[in-house]
């Protein structure tokens, strides 16, 4: 009987100890390990990835051009975004048969923060524009274009070709389209990505505007632009222009 009571007491003590107290996190020590190629490697991962790597390298390490100066992703304006907008603008006439007024790339659509000067591989262009986004033509009225440019201004500035504008209180001002002040009643040929044209990156004002889509990848526009520059005996470079600037 006594033994039973002892057993019960012991069980109960342990039971209540675990029931009435809880474990709470009181301290957190943090660290961030920089992962570098010179750290030891897990051999099984290296082996597992090898077949994928071989075939990726085979098609992606092909050199397609030479870049003169490094291109940076920057807001309100940066050379990397300018280059992408130029590529869209350049190919528009041939592809859509119209004279483009402006081309736009959403800032979030620039997928590298920097491209260093030197040889450019096919893979580098895939990393810059990994999405299978398509180039589309939208005919947009000046007043809606103003709303859209305001949207890009509020987002800190998106890459543009054919335009210069100032960002003032998160709005687009002093807008020049091919050197002429924006006319709210005029219709403009906007070269865009289907992603943004479909309302992506919160560009809802563009959603209702019809798109001409010929299945032309943005990435292919970049390849074609590099090929065209080469044909003119030029390396990859960006026309330095004041396009989007802060007040």
């Amino acid at each position, binding site marked *: 009987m006594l033994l039973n009571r002892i057993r019960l007491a012991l069980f109960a003590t342990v039971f209540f100890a675990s029931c009435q107290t*809880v474990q709470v996190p009181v301290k957190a020590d943090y660290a961030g390990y920089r992962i570098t190629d010179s750290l*030891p490697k897990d051999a099984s991962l290296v082996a597992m990835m090898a077949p994928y790597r071989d075939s990726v390298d085979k098609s992606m390490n092909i050199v397609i051009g030479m870049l003169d100066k490094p291109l940076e992703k920057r807001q309100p304006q940066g050379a990397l975004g300018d280059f992408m907008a130029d590529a869209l603008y350049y190919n528009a006439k041939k592809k859509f048969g119209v004279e483009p007024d402006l081309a736009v790339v959403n800032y979030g659509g620039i997928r590298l923060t920097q491209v260093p000067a030197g040889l450019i591989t096919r893979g580098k262009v895939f990393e810059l524009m990994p999405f299978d986004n398509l180039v589309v033509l939208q005919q947009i009225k000046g007043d809606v274009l103003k709303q859209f440019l305001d949207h890009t201004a509020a987002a800190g500035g998106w890459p543009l070709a054919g335009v210069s504008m100032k960002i003032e209180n998160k709005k687009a001002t002093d807008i020049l389209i091919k050197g002429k002040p924006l006319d709210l009643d005029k219709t403009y040929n906007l070269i865009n990505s289907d992603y943004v044209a479909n309302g992506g990156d919160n560009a809802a004002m563009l959603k209702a505007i019809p798109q001409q889509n010929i299945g032309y990848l943005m990435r292919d526009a970049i390849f074609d632009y590099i090929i065209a520059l080469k044909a003119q005996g030029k390396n990859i470079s960006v026309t330095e222009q004041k396009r989007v600037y802060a007040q």
Partner: protein
Amino acid sequence: MLNRRGFITQSALATGSLLLSSTIIKAADLYDVPRRLTILHTNDVHSRIDPFPMDGSRNQGLAGVASRAQLIRQIRAQEENVLVLDAGDIFQGTPYFNIYKGEPEIKAMSAMGYDAATVGNHDFDAGLEALAMQLERHASFPMIICNYDFSGTPMETKYQPYKIFRKGGLKIGVLGVGVELQGLVPENLYGATKYLDPVQQANRTAATLKAQNCDLIICLSHLGYRSSANRMSDLVFAPQTENIDLIIGGHSHTFLEKPEVVKNKNGEDVVINQVGWAGLQLGRLDFIFEKRRRKTLVGSQAIVVSKKTEI
């Protein structure tokens, strides 16, 4: 309950033999060893299987799954209780994804022993069917998200709102929240997926985890750290939550110099951390636990965050 407690206390006193008290002390000693949990985490790895190439770019020679795998292996050998977590955007960003649609990424994470991940907006990029297929074929870890409803999509059976892990006598609840899809992800990619309010869903899920006596509740978040114009982000989300102790963030590619600590709606600490993108860094948090009496808990939780001295 009180009567029974009284009875037991009395019994214990009455039979307070030397043998018994020493047994109790021993049990208590064992119980008092501070419990530890090591959390390793990544976010926005974006198909970065290989290190950045040696081409003069800022990140040349950095990142890569083989080095990360070895480091995780090494930490697992040193620490008893380890969880490896990812906060989404596993996919998109290198030709690996253009060619293989996510297969090497998911295989590598499984091989590294990831315990859980959440769904980022770019994980939709090859379509829901491709995501579901890669998970089905190659994932040994669950996709955890409580504010996407994938009913009627190929992802329907490939995700769960939360998971409870048991590590060294601790119960750890992990839930996940994802970013608003409309206006971000093309509609043809997310299909019939329904986005639900992350605060409401996270609080509901965390309450479930608390009711199951989880000692630590972790939210994997792909909301982004900070956002303009009052949009949802970790800094907007965390103060509206309850029961969540830690947010492992992603989406905004933010390199936090140190984890941020904010107060939740009950004045308790929530730790937020995020480690940039591309697997340039592996984040680590070592949580130390203390035994507390349950009734003193409400509104009193504070977590001291400090830099780990030895790596």
